[in-house]
C-alpha cells in the first residue's frame, strides 16, 4: 500500500498533534503561531490532495477508496478547513485553549475526509463520529457563554440520537446483506427490495445523514447551533460538516443502496421540497444574520438534495459542484459575520446579540472589505451570474429540467427568487442604511480568509470548466455501477 495515498490525512494528523503538544509548552501570548501552523498543515494537505486528483486506489482491505469523488470532497473539506484555521487565528487571539481549537478543527476535518474516502459503512460511521465529536466540542468552545453551551448541548443530544438511528439503519442493512462493504452491499441489496426492512433502513439512514445535511425535519438543532456557536465554528459546520452528510448519503444511497432507488428517491424528493421551501420562508423573518444564514443553508441543502432525485450524472455532478461552491460562499458569509461580531464585541463587550442585522448598518462605510465580500457571498448564495452559486444552480437546475422533473425545477427556481428577499436585505443594510458609527479597522486574518473565499467564489463562477470537469468525474464514480 502506498502511504502517499494518505499524505493529506497524515499531514493533518501530524499537524494536529504537533499543535496540541506545542500548545502545552508555550505561553498564551505566543499561541498565535499555532494558527499559522494549522493553516500550513491544511495547505500541505490541500496540495497533496490536489496533486493526487485522478488517482484511483483502494486500501486497508478495500475499506477505503481513493477516487475522483473522495478527492473532490476532500478538497471541499480542506478549503473550508483552510478558511476555518485562517480566521481562527483572529478568533482565538489571547485564548489559553487555542491549541484545542485548532486540533479539534483539524481532527474534524480528518473525520470528514475519511467519510469521503470510505468504502465500508464502518469506516464511514467512525469518520462520521470523529467529525461529530470534534465539532460538538467546538460548538461549545466559549465555555462561559451560555448560548454557545446550549448550542453544543442541543447539537450533541440530537447528534447522538441521529447517530443511534444511523447505526440502527446500518445494522438492518448488515443484517440483510451480510456485509458492511459498500460494493458488497450493492451486490446483495436486492434482498431488501420491496421488504419493509429495506424501507425502514433507508429512512433510518436518511435520518442519520439528514441530521448532518440539516434536512427538515432533522434540522431543528441547526439554527440554534449555528447561531449559538462561534461564527468560525458555524462556518465549519455549515460549509464542511454538512458536505460530509452529503458525500455519505451519496455513497450509501447512490452506490450501496441503488437497488432501493424507488424508495429513497421519493423520500428525497419530499425532503428536498420541504427543506428548501421551509428554509427560505423562515429565513425571511430572521433578524439574526447567523440564524438567517443557518436557514439559508437549509435551503441550499434542499437544492443539493435535488441531485438525489434527478440522479443523472449531470445532476450528481451539479450537486457535487454545488458542494464546493457552497463551501466557499457559506464559509465566507459566516466569516464575514465573525468579523462583524468581533467589531461589535470590541466596541461593546456585553453585547448580547452581536450578529443582529442592525449591526450591519452602514457596513459598506465602516468595514468596506467585509461588506464587499459579504455582498459577493450573499449574491453567490442567491445565484447571481458570474459567481460560483450561479454556475452551480445553473447546472443543477438545467439537469433537473432535462430529466423531466420540471415541477421540481420550478419549485427550486421560485425558492431562489424568495431567497433573494433576505439576501438583498443584508446588502441593503450594509450599503443603503445610514449609520453614525466610525470606520473601523478590519482584522487581517478575517480579511485574508474572506478574500480567499471571494476569489474562490468568483474564480469558480468565471472559470468553472476545470471544476465542472472534476465534479463530473466524481459523479462518474457514483454512477459507474448504475
Amino acid at each position, binding site marked *: 500500500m502506498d502511504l502517499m495515498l494518505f499524505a493529506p490525512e497524515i499531514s493533518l494528523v501530524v499537524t494536529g498533534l504537533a499543535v496540541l503538544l506545542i500548545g502545552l509548552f508555550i505561553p498564551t501570548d505566543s499561541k498565535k503561531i499555532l494558527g499559522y501552523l494549522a493553516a500550513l498543515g491544511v495547505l500541505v494537505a490541500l496540495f497533496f490532495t490536489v496533486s493526487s486528483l485522478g488517482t484511483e486506489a483502494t486500501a486497508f482491505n478495500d475499506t477505503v477508496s481513493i477516487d475522483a469523488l473522495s478527492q473532490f470532497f476532500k478538497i471541499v473539506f480542506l478549503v473550508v478547513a483552510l478558511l476555518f484555521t485562517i480566521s481562527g487565528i483572529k478568533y482565538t487571539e489571547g485564548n489559553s485553549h487555542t491549541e484545542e481549537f485548532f486540533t479539534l478543527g483539524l481532527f474534524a476535518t480528518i473525520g470528514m475526509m475519511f467519510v469521503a474516502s470510505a468504502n465500508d459503512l464502518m469506516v464511514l460511521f467512525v469518520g462520521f463520529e470523529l467529525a461529530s465529536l470534534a465539532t460538538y466540542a467546538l460548538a461549545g468552545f466559549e465555555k462561559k457563554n451560555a448560548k454557545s453551551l446550549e448550542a453544543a448541548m442541543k447539537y450533541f443530544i440530537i447528534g447522538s440520537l441521529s447517530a443511534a438511528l444511523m447505526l440502527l439503519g446500518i445494522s438492518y442493512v448488515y443484517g440483510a446483506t451480510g456485509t458492511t462493504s459498500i460494493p458488497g452491499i450493492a451486490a446483495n441489496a436486492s434482498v431488501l427490495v420491496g421488504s419493509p426492512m429495506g424501507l425502514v433502513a433507508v429512512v433510518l439512514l436518511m435520518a442519520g445523514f439528514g441530521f448532518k445535511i440539516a434536512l427538515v425535519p432533522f434540522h431543528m438543532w441547526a439554527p440554534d447551533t449555528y447561531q449559538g456557536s462561534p461564527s468560525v465554528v458555524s462556518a465549519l459546520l455549515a460549509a464542511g460538516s454538512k458536505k460530509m452528510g452529503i458525500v455519505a448519503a451519496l455513497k450509501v444511497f447512490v452506490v450501496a443502496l441503488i437497488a432501493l432507488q424507488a*424508495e429513497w428517491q421519493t423520500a428525497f424528493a*419530499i425532503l428536498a421540497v420541504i427543506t428548501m421551501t421551509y428554509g427560505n420562508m423562515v429565513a425571511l423573518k430572521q433578524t439574526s444574520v447567523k440564524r438567517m444564514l443557518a436557514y439559508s443553508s437549509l435551503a441550499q441543502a434542499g437544492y443539493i438534495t435535488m441531485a438525489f432525485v434527478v440522479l443523472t450524472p449531470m445532476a450528481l455532478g451539479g450537486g457535487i459542484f454545488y458542494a464546493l461552491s457552497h463551501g466557499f460562499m457559506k464559509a465566507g458569509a459566516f466569516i464575514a459575520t465573525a468579523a462583524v461580531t468581533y467589531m461589535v464585541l470590541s466596541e461593546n463587550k456585553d453585547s448580547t446579540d452581536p450578529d443582529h442585522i442592525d449591526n450591519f448598518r452602514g457596513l459598506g462605510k465602516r468595514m468596506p472589505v467585509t461588506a464587499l465580500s459579504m455582498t459577493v457571498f450573499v449574491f453567490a448564495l442567491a445565484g447571481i451570474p458570474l459567481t460560483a452559486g450561479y454556475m452551480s444552480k445553473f447546472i443543477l437546475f438545467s439537469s433537473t429540467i432535462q430529466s423531466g422533473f420540471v415541477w421540481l425545477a420550478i419549485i427550486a427556481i421560485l425558492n431562489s427568487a*424568495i431567497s433573494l428577499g433576505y439576501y438583498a436585505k443584508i446588502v441593503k443594510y450594509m450599503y443603503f442604511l445610514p449609520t453614525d458609527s466610525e470606520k473601523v479597522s478590519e482584522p487581517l486574518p478575517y480579511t485574508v480568509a474572506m478574500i480567499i473565499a471571494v476569489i474562490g467564489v468568483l474564480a469558480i463562477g468565471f472559470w468553472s*470548466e476545470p471544476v465542472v470537469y472534476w465534479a463530473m468525474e466524481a459523479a462518474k464514480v457514483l454512477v459507474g455501477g448504475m
Partner: protein
Amino acid sequence: MAVENLAFLIPVLPALAFVLTFFLGKKLPNGGSIIPITAIAISFVISLLITLKLLANPEEVVSQSYSWFAMLNIGILVDPLAAVMLTMVTFASLLIHIYSTGYMSHDKAPSRYFAETALFTASMLGLILSDNILQLFICWELVGVCSYLLIGFWFEKPSAATAAKKAFLTTRIGDVMFLTGIIVLFADLYKMFNGTIPDGVFILRFDEIFAHIPEIAAINSTILGMEVSHITLITLLFFGGAVGKSGQFPLHVWLPDAMEGPTTVSALIHAATMVTAGVYLVARTFPMFIAAPDSLMVVAYVGAFTALFAGTMGIVMNDLKRVLAYSTVSQLGYMMLGLGVGAAVGAEAVGISIFHLVNHAFFKALLFLCAGSVIHAVGTHDMRQLGGVAKVMPITAATMIIASLALTGMGIPGTSIGTSGFFSKDAIIESAYLFGESTGTWLPYLFSIAAALLTSLYIFRLVFMTFYGKPRTDYGGHESPASMTIPLSIFALLALIFGGLTAEKFNTFVSETFVNNFVHVDIHELATLGGYHLVEHAGHEPLLVLWMPLIVALAGLVIAYLVYGLKIVNMDSLVSRNNPIYKLLYNRYYQNSIFTNFVSVKVIYEGFAFAGRAVDRGFDWTVKWFSDLAIESGESLRQFQTGAVQNYATAVITGVSLLVILVKVVMEVL
C-alpha cells in the same frame, strides 16, 4: 525573456492601477495619479518595444490563446494593426494623464477621476488586444461604461448626468446590433462544425472566422423580401455597432453632448481613443467587409456623409469644445470613408484609415488639450466671450495653430513636406477619387472635398475668434502650468512631423495585418467574393486631384481670415435667428429635437412608461401577494422552532415515522 510574453501586461497594469487608485487614491497626493501614470508608462514601453519588433518582421505576430469555456477562448493578438493602436493609445493616455494632474488639480475627486480613466485605458487596451470577437465585445461594453462614468463625472450637474445617459443609450443601439451580429456569426459557425468542435478550435477567434468567410457568404436569408448574404448581414450589424461607438450619422448625436465631461476626458475618450473603437472594429474585421457585397459601399457613403454633415454644424457652434466635437465626428467620418474605399484599394484601406486615426489622435487630442488649457485659464468655453487669448497664452496658441494646420492637412503635394494630417487625409481623399473611378459613384469623393473646405473654415474660425483680435470680455488669464504645456508641446511636435516621418512605412506595415502566422487572408480573392473591382496601382491621378484638398483648405483659411480676422463681412446679419439656414444648422438639423425630444422622450419613453406602469402594477401585486404569503408562512413556521431540545428529538422521531408511512403511501399510489 522575450517582450512578447509581457504583452498581457499591457491591459493588466492599468487594470491594477484602477484597483489601487480606487482604494488608495484618496490617501495619496494628487488623487494617486502617480499609479496610473506609472502603469500606463510601462504599458507604453512594452507596446512600443513590441511594435518595433513587429516592424522588423511583420509576419511574426504575437498570439496567445487560452481556453475559456467550451469553444470560446480568451487571448491576445498583437499584429501590426493592434500594435500601432496599442502604442498610440498608451502614448496618448500617458500624456493626457500627465496633463490631467494639472488640469484636475482643483477638482474635488481626483482619485475617482484617475481610477476611472485607468479603467478606461485598461478596457480600451483589452479591446485592441482581443483575438476573438466576444472578448472584443466585452471590452467594447466596458469602454462604454467608462465613457458613461466619465461623461457624468460631474454628475451633480444635471446636464452632465443627462449627457452621460444619452451617450450610453445611443451607443446602446449600436451595441445591440453588434451583439446581434456576433450571435448570427456564432450560429453560422456552429452549424458549420455540425455541433462538434474539436479541442483547440475557438470558433469566435479571428483566424477561425476569417477562414470561414466563403462559407458564411454562401448562406443566405430572406429579410423583408430581400435575399441577403449572411456575410453582408453580419458586417452591416457590426458596422451598426461602429456607427454608434464612432459617432457616425445618424447616431452621432451623443458625441457633442459628451463634452459635458472634463476636457481631458473629451481628449482621451471622445477624440483619441474610444470613438475610434468603431473604426478599429471595421478594420479588424476588414476581410469580412471586403467579402460582403455592398457593405463597404455603405461604409463609404455613411463615412463621407458624416464627414460633410458634421462639418456643416461645426461652422456655427459657439462653444469651443462643441466645435471640436463636431470636428471629431467629421474626422471619424473620414476614417470610415478610408475603410470604405477598400472597395477600390483593398487592404491598403486599412493602412490609410488607421494612419489617419493615429494622426487624428495626436492633433485632436492636442486641440482638446489646448481648449482645456484655455478653459482652465479663463474659465469659459464660449468663443464669443474670448478673443486675443494668444497674447496671454502663447504656448497654447502656438500649439493650437499647429494642431489646426494638421487638422486641415496643410502640406505640399508631391513632396514629403507637410503636417501629419496632410499625409493621411489626402490619402483618404485620393483613394475616394479612385473609389469613384472604380465604382462610378462620385458622391463620397465630392462629400470629402466639401468637408475639407468646411474643416478649414470651422477650425480657423475658432482660431481667429479665440486667439486673435481684442478680448471681448474681461477675463483674467495666465499660461497653464508645465504639467500641461509639456504634453501640449509633445503632441504638437507629433502633429507636425509624425505623418511625414512615417508616411511611407506606416501604410504598408498596417496593410500587412492580414498576412502573417496568425491569419492568412487573400484579400483579392475575398474582394471577388464581394464583387469589388480592386484598382491595381494608385498614383496616376490627375494633378488637380492631388492639389484639390490643399486648395480647398487654403480657401477655407482665407475665408475664415477675411470674415473673422479682418471682419469684412458683418456676421451679425447672417448669424441671426431669422436666417433659416443658420437656424437649421444651429439647431443641428433638428435631429436632436426630433430624435431625442420627440421620438425618444415622448413616444418611446412615455409609451413604454405607460405600458410599463400597467405591467408593473400587475407584477407588483402578484409579487407582493407572494412575498406576503412567504413572510407570513415564515412567521408561522417559526413557531415550530421552540428551542426545547426534547421537541427537536420528537421531531426527528416523528419525521422518521412519517417518512416511512409517506414513502410507503406514495409508492403504493404510484
